[in-house]
């Protein structure tokens, strides 16, 4: 059986791991390579590294870091942050990344998704969607690290990028991110139902039950968390053992 994936996410700034609470108040949570090795050994199924460095200098550092990560870990990983061209992706895949995730640049230029799929194959193109619910607008897609509302309804956008060649959707609910109150089950479920590609639930994980809900109630294919894992509030082995006991197929 194909298993549900548990994915620790590492936000990277200047070569170090950070995690914002609701994308603000960044705290330092360690060395990315050490953390990556530790997660791989613990049984994480994949890792995601998001570069939140904005400068060109930082970009180069990130590509070097990607190489260093690829050298040391034997599980797949996705990298994202500031990717806006085929050339950007070439550098990261060449450094040893398995997949790339694009977010704001896909909104700015949706053709980028099809261009990347054509060049590298859909299997390495993840589209990250930051979504936020307001009573007035419903679930809308946000851009620029979740600061700017777009005209896209979340489910429509997910369908659109899938049609363009996205191989996976990483869906982060801004309402839930950092709250530890659980994943946004309604929108995750709607997106998982609407698209034919795998969906990663992200934002809000605070307990083992939240992961179970993401898989059973929202039909997510994978679930992602950051600080919960980084600060050892929840261990990957304990989480997977729990999920297995609850009848979820996981790799143990």
């Amino acid at each position, binding site marked *: 059986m194909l298993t549900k994936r548990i994915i620790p996410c590492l936000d990277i700034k200047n070569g170090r791991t950070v995690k914002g609470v609701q994308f603000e108040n960044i705290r330092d949570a360690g060395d990315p390579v050490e953390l990556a090795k530790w997660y791989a050994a613990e049984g994480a199924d994949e890792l995601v590294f998001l570069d939140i460095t904005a400068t060109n200098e930082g970009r180069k550092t990130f590509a070097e870091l990607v190489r260093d990560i*690829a050298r040391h870990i034997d599980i797949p990983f996705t990298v994202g942050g500031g990717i806006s061209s085929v050339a950007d992706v070439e550098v990261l895949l060449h450094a040893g990344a398995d997949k790339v995730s694009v977010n704001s640049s896909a909104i700015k230029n949706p053709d980028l998704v099809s261009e990347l799929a054509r060049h590298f194959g859909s299997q*390495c193109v993840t589209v990250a969607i930051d979504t936020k619910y307001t009573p007035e607008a419903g679930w809308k897609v946000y851009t620029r690290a979740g600061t700017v509302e777009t005209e896209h309804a979340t489910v429509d956008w997910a369908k659109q990028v899938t049609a363009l060649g996205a191989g996976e959707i990483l869906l982060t609910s801004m309402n839930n991110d950092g709250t530890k109150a659980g994943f946004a089950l309604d929108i995750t479920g709607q997106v998982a139902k609407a698209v034919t590609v*795998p969906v990663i639930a992200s934002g809000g994980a605070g307990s083992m039950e939240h992961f179970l809900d993401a898989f059973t109630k929202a039909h997510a294919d994978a679930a992602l968390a950051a600080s919960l894992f980084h600060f050892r509030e929840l261990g990957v082995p304990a989480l997977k053992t729990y999920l297995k006991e609850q009848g979820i197929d996981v790799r143990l």
Partner: protein
Amino acid sequence: MNLVIVDYKAGNVQSVLFALERLGVQATLSSDFETIKAADKVIFPGVGEASSAMAQLRARNLHKLLPTLQQPFFGVCLGMQLLCQHSEEGDTDMLGIIPLQVKRFQTDLKVPHMGWNQLENQQSPLFSGINEKDYVYYVHSFYVPLSEYTIAQTSYPEPFSAALQYKNFYAAQFHPEKSGPAGSQILKNFLAL
């Protein structure tokens, strides 16, 4: 041992190099006809789209060389599919080494088939030390059905070829270089063939 990884700009070459490095093995990257021909063993990685990969192989004249190789050869992921006759991906004629067809998943399940899935019914020294139902990492939208050349299978939801062997040509649909300790063992087994 002279181990060569075929470099044709369509492979996850770096990941394979690093996986070998973790096993303490040095490999040469090459697209050169003579270098590949002279290798003791050849690894043929691949990710991406079938017709572009075939175009890259043709541009280097490797479509003529690869079928003639006699040494142990290991195709990985798209590298496995390229060894077959034809792929539904872009209606592409492949290298034609193994007389099999590559098909697109027709299922209600999510495609790409992405993540960790189980090996079953392994029948090759390539899998020595690997248990029935051990997990390996997959990411693909096209597959090779079961055949007389299948040496391991995985189900999604129907069983398909997880690995093939035809003469000296071994191939895996999954990514041994990304499959944790089980993947490392499979690479080690290939090196020991």
